C-alpha cells in the first residue's frame, strides 16, 4: 500500500533521532529503486523459491469444514517456508537490499526469536555480520531459538533494560543503529518503525496475498470471501490483505492477542475494543498500549510473536477506516484452536497463527456453506513445543526434561573456556 509521504491516514511517518536521517534516506532511495528494478525482483523471486520454498500451498481443510458445517476453510501455508514462518519473505527481501546498499552488517530485534533466526539464516547465506537484540526475559522463555541463532554465527545480545522483552529489544536495536548506521542496516521484523519500513516489509510480505489470488482462482474459481490473519506487528496480515484491498467483496479480519484478560498488562490488544491510544514512539505513529501519561506499557500473550505494544500503521489505518475488522482471541481459545487443527488436519500451527485460527473458528459455523475463507497459517508450531506442552498439561514432559538434564554433559564450562 502506497503511503502519503510515509503516512497512512494519521499513522506512520518518521520520528527518529536526527543521527539516523541519512541512513533512513538511503533506505528510502534504495527501496524505491529496487522495487522498480526487474533484476532485483527476479533475484528476489529466485531466492524466495530456491531458499524458502515458495510458492507455499493453499490447503483445503475438509475435516475442519465438516466439523463446523459452515464456510469452506482453506489455509495459506506460510508455515512451510524455510525457518517455518512468513518472516522469511521479508528477511530475504531486506537481505538483498542490504547487499545492494553495500552494507556489511545487519541488526535485528526479536521477541520469540523467529525473526532473529530468519535474520541469522539470511545473514549466514549472504555473508553479513549479524547482531540480534532480544529481551533477557524472552531469552529465558525461548532459549532453543537463541541456541540456533548462535550456531548460525549471530551475536545475540540480551537486553536487560525495562521489561526485558520485545519493546526493549527494539529500542536497543535503534540505539545500535544510531552508532553503526554507516555499515549496518536495521533489519526490522515487522511492518512497523519509521518510513519506509512499514511499506517495505508489507511489500515483501505481499507475496502471500499475490499467491492466494492466483491459487484461489485456480482452486475454486473465485477470490476468497474472507481472509483471517493474526496481528502482532502486522506483517503477515499486511502480506495477505493488501493485495486484496481493492477487491471490495473480500472481507478481512485481523486477530489480536487477548492474552489472559482485558486489564492493561494482560493482553496485546491495541486496535479492537478501543484499548490502545494514538501515540508516537519507536519511530512512528500508531495505536500503542500506554498509560494516561504516554508511557508505553507491558503486554502479554501466550504467543511471544504477538506480544508487542504497537502495531503496523497500515493495519491501524485500515482498521480505523473500517476496511479491516479487528477482533481478538484469548490464550485458552488459542490453545483449543491449535489442538483442533492438530487433530483434524495433521498440521502443527504456531501459537501466533492459532490466533487467526481461533478467530476464524468462531465465525465459520455461521457463514454460508458455499463461502470460502482463507486463514493465514503464518508459522509452524515446532518452536512452541515447551509452551504447548505446559498449556495442555502434558504429563510426561517434565519427566523428559528431568531425564534429559540428568544425561546432559556437565563439563560445558570447560568447553566454553576452550572456545574462548
Amino acid at each position: 500500500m502506497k503511503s502519503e509521504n510515509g503516512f497512512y491516514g494519521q499513522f506512520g511517518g518518521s520520528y527518529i533521532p536526527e543521527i539516523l536521517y541519512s541512513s533512513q534516506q538511503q533506505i528510502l532511495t534504495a527501496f524505491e529503486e529496487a522495487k522498480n528494478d526487474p533484476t532485483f525482483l527476479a533475484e528476489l523471486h529466485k531466492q524466495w523459491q530456491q531458499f524458502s520454498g515458495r510458492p507455499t500451498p493453499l490447503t483445503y481443510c475438509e475435516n475442519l469444514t465438516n466439523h463446523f458445517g459452515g464456510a469452506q476453510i482453506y489455509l495459506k501455508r506460510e508455515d512451510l517456508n524455510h525457518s517455518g514462518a512468513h518472516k522469511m519473505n521479508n528477511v530475504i527481501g531486506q537481505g538483498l537490499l542490504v547487499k545492494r546498499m553495500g552494507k556489511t552488517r545487519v541488526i535485528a530485534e526479536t521477541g520469540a526469536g523467529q525473526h532473529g533466526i530468519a535474520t541469522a539464516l539470511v545473514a549466514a547465506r549472504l555473508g553479513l555480520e549479524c547482531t540480534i537484540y532480544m529481551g533477557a526475559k524472552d531469552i529465558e522463555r525461548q532459549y532453543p531459538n537463541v541456541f540456533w541463532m548462535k550456531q548460525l554465527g549471530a551475536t545475540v545480545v540480551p537486553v536487560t533494560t525495562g521489561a526485558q522483552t520485545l519493546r526493549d529489544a527494539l529500542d536497543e536495536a535503534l540505539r545500535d543503529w544510531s552508532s553503526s548506521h554507516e555499515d549496518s542496516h536495521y533489519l526490522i521484523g515487522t511492518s512497523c518503525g519509521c518510513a519506509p519500513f512499514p511499506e517495505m516489509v508489507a511489500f515483501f510480505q505481499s507475496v502471500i496475498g499475490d499467491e492466494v489470488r492466483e491459487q484461489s482462482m485456480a482452486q475454486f474459481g473465485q477470490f476468497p470471501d474472507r481472509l483471517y490473519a493474526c496481528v502482532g506487528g502486522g506483517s503477515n496480515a499486511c502480506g495477505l490483505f493488501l493485495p486484496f484491498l481493492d477487491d471490495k467483496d473480500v472481507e478481512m479480519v485481523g486477530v489480536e492477542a487477548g492474552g489472559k484478560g482485558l486489564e492493561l498488562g494482560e493482553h496485546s490488544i491495541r486496535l479492537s475494543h478501543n484499548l490502545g491510544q494514538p501515540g508516537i514512539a519507536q519511530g512512528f505513529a500508531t495505536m500503542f498500549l500506554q498509560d494516561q501519561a504516554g508511557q508505553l506499557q507491558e503486554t502479554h500473550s501466550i504467543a511471544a510473536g504477538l506480544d508487542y505494544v504497537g502495531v503496523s500503521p497500515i493495519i491501524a489505518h485500515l482498521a480505523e477506516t473500517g476496511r479491516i475488522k479487528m477482533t481478538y482471541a484469548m490464550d485458552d481459545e488459542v490453545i483449543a484452536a491449535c489442538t483442533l487443527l492438530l487433530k483434524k488436519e495433521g498440521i502443527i500451527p504456531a501459537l501466533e497463527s492459532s490466533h487467526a485460527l481461533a478467530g476464524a473458528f468462531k465465525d465459520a459455523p455461521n457463514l454460508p456453506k458455499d463461502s470460502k475463507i482463507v486463514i493465514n497459517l503464518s508459522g509452524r508450531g515446532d518452536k512452541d513445543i515447551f509452551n504447548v506442552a505446559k498449556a495442555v498439561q502434558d504429563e510426561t514432559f517434565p519427566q523428559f526434561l528431568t531425564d534429559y538434564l540428568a544425561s546432559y554433559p556437565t563439563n560445558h564450562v570447560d568447553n566454553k573456556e576452550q572456545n574462548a
Partner: protein
Amino acid sequence: MSQLAAFIDKKRQTKPILSMTHVVYGYPTVQESLDWMARLMKEGVDFIEVQFPFSDPVADGPSIVAACHKALEQTLDVETCLAQLGKLAKDFPESRIVLMSYLNPMYRFGLEKFAKRASEENILGLILPDLPIEQAVDYRAACEKYQIDPVWLVTPVTPKDRLAMLASQANGFLYCVARSGVTGHSVHEDKAHENNHHTTSLDNYLAEIKQHANAPIGVGFGLRERAQIEQLIGKADIAILGSALLDAYNRGGQEEGIKLINALFH
C-alpha cells in the same frame, strides 16, 4: 531576539563557554531530583537541561535509560513537573531551564499546551529528539505563539544542505551532537567510525555549522573531560554535560557531581 539567545549572548560577554547540566526529573525521586537541580543552579551553572522521562528513550545510552526507568517507578506528571520547574526558575534567576523529553509523553499532554505551559513557567527551550523538523509544523507554530524556542539537533552525518536548513531555523541555540550514537558511554560506541570520509572532525564540523547558524551553538554527547571542553572554546557557546554528570552523581551524590563540574568548567 529569542530570550534564550539573548541570555546566552549576555553571559558569553564574561564567560568563554557556558555550562548546561542535565538532570533526569524524578531520579531517584522527584524531591531528590529537584534538590539536585536547585543545587546546580545555586552553584552557578548557566543552564539546567531537565529530562522528563519516557519509557522508551531511544536516543539515550545506559546511564540515562536506567535513570529514566528508575524514575518511572513513580507516576510522573508533566503538569506537576512544569510547575516545579517554574518555581526553580523564579528562585534562581541567574540560571535558565530547558526541558527535554521524547515526543509521546508531550504528544499525549498536548504539544500546544506543552509549549504554552512551559513558556508560562519561564522555561526557555524545548528539546524533543524524536520530533524531526519536517513533522513539527503545529509544534513550531505553538512555540512561536508562546515565545519559547524549539531546539533542533544536528549531527556529524547530517547532510550539508540539511545542516544549513536546520541551522537557519535555530533561534535559541542549535544543539550539535558531537558524535554518532546515543548519550553517554555505550556498548555501541566502538561501532561508530568517526574519522572516515563521511564525517569531519569536530572542529571542521563546528566551523561548517557556524557558517550557517545565527543562533548560539551548544555541543553535547560524550563530553566528560576538561580537554574536550577547552577544545570547544571559541567554537561553541555551550557545553552540555549529561551522562558524565549522572555517572558522577551515581558514584557519590551531589558532591561528586559538583566536583566534576568544577573540574570541567572552573
